[in-house]
């Protein structure tokens, strides 16, 4: 896959499959998604904790969208709400033009088939007491109604597509390596011939020597099947390597969005700059380190949420801010807007 530096910063150019993308509507579009966790209490009202605030995104066909942020920023929640693993989200979403229920978890079987989720821990996503084939069979049965594919054929196709053999199917999870399990986990998602696959930190619990094979598998699947994926990670190295477009999330808000190459080359938001400074990627033109994090998640400042840690913060940062888009880039920062233009 080649990647061009686009002078306009438009992400449509950056995907490398422009024609298809420009003609089609997004496979997934999410509008103003919020999600609040409440601690249940016996008496009195629980404390709310807003994990996501008004997140909107579009995923185009055959695109890998990278979502980057640190622990607790809500990036996994985003995937889980859209995939229906978590419920009680507020906002709208459409998959293939059909509305997707984010609040109740009432999805049709076909919708569950369309949106698949790959969990972070390969060990945690298989029942240790059952052979891995048992786990894959559930998905094969889910898909059979729509695809009509016999369960055993679907299983075989899935393991082949992730570079494993049928002999791996009748093993127990503890007889497989982390990398093999993660492949099977991806294979399980592919069984249903999904439109969208969410991958939640697919490489973070793997050794670095195995990381490459999973990333190659993902880019390969995008090339061969035109699979649309959302890849969630804390690791900017991984995201910038594999994603076409990047969303940077801080404390439940999108703070920056743009094509991968553009964001790495010209990070606008101070938080993106700090992430880049901490990563093994070449340092940005202006490296930046953040102050110690003593934030309180149940109290969200009205203005910039990074301001308490940001070395560049000034008085106006406490005013409400919006995601401002220009030339295919969006950023939520008073100071960065000028640098973008």
């Amino acid at each position, binding site marked *: 896959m080649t990647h061009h530096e686009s002078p306009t910063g438009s992400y449509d150019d950056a995907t490398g499959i422009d024609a298809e993308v420009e003609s089609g509507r997004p496979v997934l579009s999410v509008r103003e998604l919020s999600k609040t966790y409440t601690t249940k209490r016996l008496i009195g009202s629980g404390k709310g904790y807003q994990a996501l605030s008004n997140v909107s995104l579009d995923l185009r066909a055959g695109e890998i969208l990278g979502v980057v942020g640190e622990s607790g920023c809500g990036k996994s929640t985003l995937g889980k709400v859209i995939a229906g693993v978590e419920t009680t989200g507020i906002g709208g979403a459409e998959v293939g033009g059909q509305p997707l229920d984010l609040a109740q978890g009432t999805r049709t079987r076909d919708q569950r088939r369309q949106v698949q989720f790959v969990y972070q821990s390969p060990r945690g996503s298989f029942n240790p007491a059952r052979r891995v084939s048992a786990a894959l069979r559930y998905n094969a049965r889910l898909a059979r109604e729509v695809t009509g594919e016999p369960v055993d054929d679907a299983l075989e196709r899935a393991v082949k597509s992730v570079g494993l053999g049928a002999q791996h199917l009748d093993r127990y999870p503890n007889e497989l390596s982390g990398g093999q399990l993660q492949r099977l986990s991806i294979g399980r998602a592919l069984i249903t011939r999904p439109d969208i696959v969410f991958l939640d930190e697919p490489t973070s619990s793997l050794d*670095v*020597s195995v*990381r*490459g*094979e999973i990333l190659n598998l993902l880019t390969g699947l995008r090339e061969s099947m035109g699979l649309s994926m959302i890849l969630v990670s*804390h690791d900017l190295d991984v995201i910038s390597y594999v994603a076409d477009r990047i969303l940077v999330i801080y404390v439940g808000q999108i703070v920056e969005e743009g094509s991968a190459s553009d964001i790495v080359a010209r990070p606008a938001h101070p938080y993106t700059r700090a*992430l880049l400074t*901490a990563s093994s990627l070449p340092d940005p033109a202006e490296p930046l380190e953040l102050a*110690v994090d003593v934030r309180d998640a149940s109290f969200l400042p009205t203005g910039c949420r990074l301001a308490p840690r940001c070395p560049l913060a000034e008085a106006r940062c406490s005013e409400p801010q919006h995601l401002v888009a220009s030339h295919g880039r969006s950023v939520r920062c008073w100071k960065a807007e000028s640098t973008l233009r």
Partner: protein
Amino acid sequence: MGEVVLLSGAGIRIDRKALPPLYPVQNVDLSVRIGDRTALVGESGCGKSLTARLLTGLLPPNAVLDRGSATLLGEFDLGEEFPDEVRGSRVAMIFQDPVSVLDPMAGIGVQIGRALAAAGVAKAERRGAAVDLLGSLHIPDPEEVARKYPHQLSGGMCQRVAIAMALAPKPDLLIADEPTTSLDVTTEVQVLDLLEEYLDSSGASLILISHDLNVVDRLAESVTVMYAGQSVEHGPIADILSEPAHPYSRDLVRSSVLNRGEAAHSIAGTLPSIENVTRTCPYRVRCSEARSACSDTSLGQVPSSDGFVRCLFPLKKMPGAAGGEPV
């Protein structure tokens, strides 16, 4: 000698009930001089954490130094009972999971006070000294933090507290076992800065254990690469990153760099079993350079002026190596 740590051919055996023993560490050479900042690098299961435990005398009760020799500070044989007094003022350890290393039942101030007491600070001064220590680690509002309990603090804050406790007795040797693995990347940078600050001001030695070459590159000067319980290469960090001699080092370095537009590197195959001690190269089954000699020749070190490699066919001629023949 001036060596704070000297391991030569060290191996650790873990005894199990009704099962054959395991040999997670088989052959580790490590020599750390005063003021050195060295790192042990390897992937999970390579024995690096157990090696760190050996160095602080904190091996689990069913694990013993099985072969080779291990000497700490030139005087303590790590195969023997480890004297408690050595810990703290001379060797201190920073652990991977900062939340679980703090006593859940005691306040932060009290816990740091215990470490300070061990370092000889008088009772009346401990509280103030603890707060000062926290302040010196750039913690905002240290009095408040000293009053809190571990469960009230974030992971990054717990790691700072653990670092404060480790640094309280001003150790000569600091062993940091994956100190930033469980932290966010922006916090990681801060914690590494703290460690560097201490090393600069005290001249203490550091052994950094990590799987992350990026972290190692920030803090260490030299690196020992471990694979399957063996130290396979040692040398200056710049050399190993740019021109590794061992095929595993090369593959590891390649895997950890992602270049957009190029296929990512990975290493096929899996780690060998640790149920047996192997004298041949443990990497040969995954190594792209392996030749038939690799599977039947027992392996020695090829020393160089500033390191060694444990490979029959190193990727480069070792500088200063005597003849280049394995010893």
